C-alpha cells in the first residue's frame, strides 16, 4: 500500500528548523521491523549518541541517514530539505539517484571497519572526495587534506597505504577523509568497536577535539559509555526499534527512568 505523503511538508520552515529530522520513519527487513515509527530531531551543532543492545536498530539510524539503506515509510529531512524524498508536483515522492546524490552531500560518515581505499595512501584517501566529487584542484585538496591529517595526528604517515597502518591510525585517517568533504552532519558508526583497547583513546580524543572546536552536528553509535557520557549533548537509548528513553547524559546515566534502560546500563556496567 502506498503511504499517503500529503501531511509531510515539502520543506521545513520556521525559526527552529533542526539539522536532522526523522519523521515517522519505519524500516523493515521482510517481516522484521528494525525501526518502528521513529521521530527524532537533532539540532545544529548537537552531539547525539545512540546506545542500546545489539539489534535495537541503532546502526540502521545512521545508515538510513547516509542513504545506505532505504526506508519503508516516513521522511528524513536534513537542513530543512527532504533527504529520502523529493518534491514533485507539490508532494513528496521517493528520491531518485540524482536527487539523493545532491541531498546527501552535507553528510559524512565513519565506519566500524574504516573502509579506507587500500590502493591509495592516507593522503590520497583524503584527497579523493574533494578532487573527484567536489571538483577541487589537487593543490587545494592537498592543503585541506594535510591540514586535517595534521589535526588527527597522522601527517607523518600521509604517504603510507592503509595496510601499513594500525586500526587506530586507519580510523583517524578515515575521520580526516570524511571531514575533507566539509560535511554539516558527521556520523560515527561504532568507530572504536574494531579497535584494540590500547588504541581506542587516540580515536576518541580526535572526536573529543571535534566536539569542542567545531560546530558540527554529530550522531554517534558507540559502546563506550564513559566516552558517550563525557562528550554528548544528548543520549538516545534504543530498544526494539524505538527510542525507549532519551535525555542529557547525566540524567540518562545518573537517573534512568525506564526499567529497560536501567537493566541495560547495569548489564553494561557489569561487563566493564
Amino acid at each position: 500500500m502506498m503511504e499517503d505523503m500529503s501531511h509531510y511538508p515539502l520543506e521545513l520552515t520556521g525559526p527552529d528548523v533542526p539539522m536532522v529530522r526523522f519523521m515517522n520513519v519505519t524500516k523493515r527487513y521482510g517481516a522484521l521491523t528494525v525501526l518502528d515509527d521513529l521521530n527524532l530531531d537533532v539540532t545544529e551543532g548537537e552531539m547525539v549518541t545512540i546506545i542500546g543492545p545489539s539489534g535495537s536498530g541503532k546502526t540502521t539510524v545512521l545508515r538510513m541517514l547516509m542513504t545506505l539503506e532505504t526506508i519503508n515509510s516516513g521522511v528524513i529531512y536534513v537542513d530543512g530539505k527532504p533527504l529520502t524524498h523529493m518534491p514533485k508536483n507539490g508532494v513528496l515522492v521517493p528520491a531518485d539517484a540524482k536527487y539523493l546524490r545532491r541531498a546527501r552531500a552535507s553528510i559524512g560518515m565513519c565506519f566500524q571497519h574504516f573502509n579506507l581505499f587500500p590502493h591509495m595512501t592516507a593522503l590520497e584517501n583524503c584527497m579523493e572526495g574533494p578532487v573527484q566529487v567536489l571538483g577541487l584542484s589537487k593543490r587545494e585538496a592537498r592543503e585541506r587534506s594535510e591540514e586535517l591529517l595534521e589535526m588527527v595526528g597522522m601527517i607523518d604517515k600521509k604517504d603510507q597505504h592503509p595496510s601499513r597502518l594500525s586500526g587506530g591510525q586507519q580510523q583517524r585517517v578515515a575521520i580526516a577523509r570524511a571531514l575533507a568533504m566539509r560535511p554539516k552532519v558527521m556520523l560515527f558508526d561504532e568507530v572504536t568497536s574494531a579497535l584494540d583497547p590500547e588504541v581506542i583513546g587516540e580515536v576518541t580524543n580526535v572526536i573529543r577535539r571535534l566536539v569542542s572546536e567545531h560546530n558540527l552536528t554529530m550522531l554517534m553509535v558507540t559502546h563506550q559509555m564513559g566516552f558517550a557520557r563525557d562528550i554528548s549533548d544528548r543520549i538516545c537509548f534504543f530498544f526494539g526499534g524505538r527510542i525507549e528513553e532519551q535525555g542529557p547524559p547525566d540524567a540518562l546515566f545518573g537517573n534512568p527512568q525506564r526499567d529497560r534502560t536501567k537493566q541495560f546500563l547495569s548489564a553494561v556496567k557489569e561487563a566493564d
Partner: protein
Amino acid sequence: MQWNWEFTYEIMPRMLWATLNTLMAAGVGYAIAVVLGLALALAQRTPYRGLTLVVREVVEFIRSTPLVLQIFFVYYVGPQYGLNLSPWVAGMIAIGLHYASYLSEVYRGGIESVPKGQWEACIALNMTPVKTYFRVIIPQALPPSVAGMGNYLVGIFKDTPMLSVIGVAELMHAANAIGGQHYRYLEPYTIVGVVFLMISLPSAGLIRAFEAWVRRKLGMR
C-alpha cells in the same frame, strides 16, 4: 620415419614468420577480449534486471559452445547477408568475443571480491557510480583478476590454431600447408608443438610474478 634436420632448417623461416602471426592473433584477440569483457561484466551490474539476464545468457551461450564452430559461424554468416569479412577480421571477432565472455566472469569475480564497505565509503564520499567503479572498485578488482586474466591470455594463444580453419595464416595453417606440399607432417607439426610449449611453459611463473607486481604497485600487500 626419421626426423629430417635439413627439412627442418628449410621450413624454419616460414614457421617463425607464422609464429609472429600467431602472437599477433593472440594479442589482438586478447585486446578485444579485455575491453569487451569489461563491458559484459559491467552490463551485468546495472539496475536493469532484463539487461543483466540477457547478457548473462549470452555469456553463458558463448562460453558453452565450441570456439571453432563460432569461428565458422562468424566467417560464413556474413557473406550470406552480403557482408564479407576477411579471415583475420572474422577470426578476431570470434576469438575476441569468446574470450570476452570468459574475462567477463573473471572481472565479475574480481568485482564481487571487493568488500561491501568500499561501496559504502564511496556513497559516504558522494562519488558517482562511474567514479566509484573506475577510481575505487576496478583498481581493487584488478589484483585478484590478474591470475585469471593471465591464464586466459595463455588460453587464447593456445586456441589460435583454430583460426587456421578459415585460413588465417598462423602456425597451424603454415604447418598444414607445408605438410601438404612436402607430404611430411612430422617436422611441421612437431615444431608447432615445441613453439607452443616454449611459450606456455614459462607463462605460469610470469603470471605469478606479474600478479605480485600489480599488488605492490597498488600498495596492497
